[in-house]
């Protein structure tokens, strides 16, 4: 198997994720925390992120239904999700979280609902893309950590 080609593909995929705004520099910071003792740290954190974020999204969904116009509660949940997005560099998701919070601040129910749908969409897309990225890295082997994209 051509491992160097796989690593190039992974690097290209990661660059694309940055160029399209899905990820920001914080993702590189997370990858930089990997070492021989924790070679899969980035993938472990991302897996944890998607597990946690799915739960938070579910909480927000329930809150939107059970607590109509409780903008403080909605905002509090979304603040948690936004924080997690920041921690892993999920840039587009973070932006949608911020939009949602702005609508909460304005007391705009329709805006919140539409924004929440965007949050869910970005969550799903990012999950697919990062799953593909890490699968490629696994195929590329232990030295498969892609290099920083040209930013």
């Amino acid at each position, binding site marked *: 198997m051509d491992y160097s080609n796989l690593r190039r593909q992974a690097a290209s995929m990661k660059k694309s994720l940055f160029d399209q705004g899905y990820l920001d520099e*914080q993702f590189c*910071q*997370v990858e*930089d*925390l990997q*070492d021989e003792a*924790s070679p899969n*740290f980035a993938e*472990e*954190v991302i897996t*944890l*992120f998607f597990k*946690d974020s799915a739960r938070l999204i579910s909480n927000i969904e329930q809150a939107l239904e059970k607590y109509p116009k409780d903008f403080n509660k909605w905002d*509090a949940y979304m*603040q*948690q999700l*936004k*924080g*997690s997005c*920041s*921690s*892993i*560099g999920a840039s587009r998701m973070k932006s949608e979280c911020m939009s949602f919070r702005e609508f909460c601040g304005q007391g705009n129910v329709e805006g919140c609902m539409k924004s929440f749908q965007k949050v869910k969409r970005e969550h799903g897309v990012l999950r697919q893309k990062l799953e593909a990225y890490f699968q490629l890295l696994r195929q590329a082997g232990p030295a498969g950590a892609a290099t920083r994209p040209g930013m």
Partner: protein
Amino acid sequence: MASKNQGPAAPRALVVEDIKVDLVVLLRMLRKLNCEATVAHNGKEAVDLFLEGKTFDIVFFDKDMPVMTGPEAVTKIRAMGASEVKMVGVSADFGGLDAFMQAGADVFVPKPMKLETLDAMLQEVIDKNMSG
């Protein structure tokens, strides 16, 4: 590049954070800087550790947590007389700056924290411990 804090004893850190992802990343950063940390999952757990007589050189508080927030915990711990411990407020919410500083924190750092920032803070604590 982040330095490894060797030689003098590594600072005793406490991380007060309820979101797993944020906690895991910060703990990994601390470990990379040779700093092992104790964990509290909300402000009350942090306060309880101090009430038990535990001491720390540096404490990182998230802002919004269940049971007790970061600023509330900072206020209570300072009121217990813990004036020397470096207290760092960490939040993705920029409104956290005022809340933490009014509560008595030493510094506020927006999330996500950079490794270089963390290294510099730990080095300050080490320097202070060596000179004290």
